[in-house]
């Protein structure tokens, strides 16, 4: 353990700011990719920033049937996702705040945000909110075992649930620790698509009541609250993408605290996240929204895949 210096916490805060600031850009890039592959022109890639700015300027309308839960939900969501961002190693193999929390805490913070979103959907007495809440709770109960088994696989392969440990040992191993990690990768990719509301599960860009899941729970929001909710959703997405990149393709991430390696690491992680986002957007254009009751099939694949990952560890 090296001696305490002020630069490391400062760099950690800089990393969090990087994630928070860049997150709408990734959303914009994914929308642009989808538009391009569907032969549309599409909005410019910085459109999400304009959206947030516009929403901040607008007046907020709150239903008089709602309670304090409805008003505090955007803040809880935003604070939960931003504090989850503190534990993610971005461009260096360890997070300066990583001693305080591991991957289970990150999932817990996401769960807190989701819990309040579901409560807020039920809180306003609109029928859509309840519908969206019930669908969201169904998905999250189904995803929970898949997510935990996947994390179990990653933890037993890389020696601990602390994200810094996982990323450091993933970076040490030359190519792949074991074929079990490939199965964990497949499972984690499916979970990533569920959690960020991607196409076979959810289509946040439409306002049809048949396809709405996350969208229905936040339908009543307007103004600043909506801006906060959209922003925290995009931060959650970039956190999951960063986790995916750093656990499964960590090559080039900087090992020590030198300026050249860190700047190289930052450039590399941005390139990797953007390419992963483009890949996901291209996958999204190739498939249609699935029927709600077929979604458990895909989550079952995720569970089965991570189960095989566990088996590969013990043989």
């Amino acid at each position, binding site marked *: 353990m090296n001696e305490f210096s002020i630069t490391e916490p400062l760099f950690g805060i800089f990393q969090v700011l990087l994630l928070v600031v860049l997150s709408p850009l990734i959303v914009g890039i994914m929308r642009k990719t989808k538009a391009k592959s569907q032969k549309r022109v599409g909005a410019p890639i910085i459109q999400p920033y304009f959206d947030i700015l516009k929403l901040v300027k607008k007046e907020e309308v709150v239903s008089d049937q709602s309670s304090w839960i409805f008003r505090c939900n955007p803040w809880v969501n935003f604070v939960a996702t931003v504090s989850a961002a503190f534990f993610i190693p971005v461009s260096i193999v360890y997070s300066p705040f990583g001693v305080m929390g591991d991957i289970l805490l990150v999932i817990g913070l996401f769960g807190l945000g989701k819990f309040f979103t579901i409560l807020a959907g039920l809180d306003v007495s609109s029928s859509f909110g309840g519908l969206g809440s019930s669908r969201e709770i169904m998905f999250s109960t189904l995803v929970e075992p898949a997510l935990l088994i996947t994390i179990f696989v990653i933890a037993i392969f890389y020696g601990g649930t602390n994200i810094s440990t996982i990323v450091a040992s993933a970076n040490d191993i030359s190519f792949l620790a074991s*074929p079990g990690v490939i199965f964990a990768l497949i499972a984690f990719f499916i979970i990533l698509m569920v959690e960020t509301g991607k196409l076979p599960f959810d289509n946040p860009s439409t306002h049809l009541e048949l396809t709405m899941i996350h969208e229905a729970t936040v339908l009543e929001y307007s103004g600043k609250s909506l801006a906060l909710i959209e922003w925290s959703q995009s931060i959650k997405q970039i956190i999951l993408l960063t986790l995916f990149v750093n656990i499964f393709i960590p090559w080039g991430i900087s090992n020590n605290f030198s300026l050249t390696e860190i700047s190289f690491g930052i450039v590399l992680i941005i390139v990797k996240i953007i390419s992963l986002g483009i890949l996901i957007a291209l996958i999204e254009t190739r498939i249609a929204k699935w029927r709600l009751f077929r979604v458990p*099939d895909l989550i079952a694949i995720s569970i089965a895949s991570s189960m095989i990952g566990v088996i590969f560890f013990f043989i």
Partner: protein
Amino acid sequence: MIFPTEINLLDISAVILLVATFGLIVSRGFSNWVNAYRYQTIVLAGIVALIASVSNIWELYIVSALTLGIKAVIIPKILFYVTKKLDSPIKLEIDPYVSMKLSVIISALLVAMSYFIFLYLDIKSNEIIQVFLPVSFALFFIGLFVIVSRRKALNQMVGLLTIENGLFLFAVSLTHGFSLIIEIGLMADILLGVIISSILLFRMSRTFDSIDIKNLESLRDD
């Protein structure tokens, strides 16, 4: 002499084969089954070529090319031809005996079971056997499971072909290839089996207007 990177390559190819096999379980449409079978066979041919390069047996390259030619090109062509000619109204597995999610989890357990069976076997002499023998068991069990859990006759054919792939992998990894004559004979055998079962499929479709095997269970002469 096998280097660590080569063992890694063997492991990864085994994983890709397992993933391709899972594609068979999760697909519902006719062309999806045949495509899943085709991908699986292409991976299998690649694995045979890999075994050939690791163990330096040139005959296995020919076997790999034969696999690619017969199993990945000709048999899918026959199956697609059958699918096009069938006048069955529904070309989806509507309600299999076991639901999709349950069958995925059951097949994961079957993979686990094949690895546990392998733990109790006493033939772990070399790396190729260690990597591919449990996978071949898994292919065998999954093919068997597809046969007993699906209702459509075409799907059962694909399950049979998967079992055959498992046996083929078993034989290749255990013996590093039979003599070439036997291999060619086996391929011809499979080809003939597929042709005969597609003829049976035509007759079944013409008699019952569907290829649901439930129709075969009633022994009524009318």
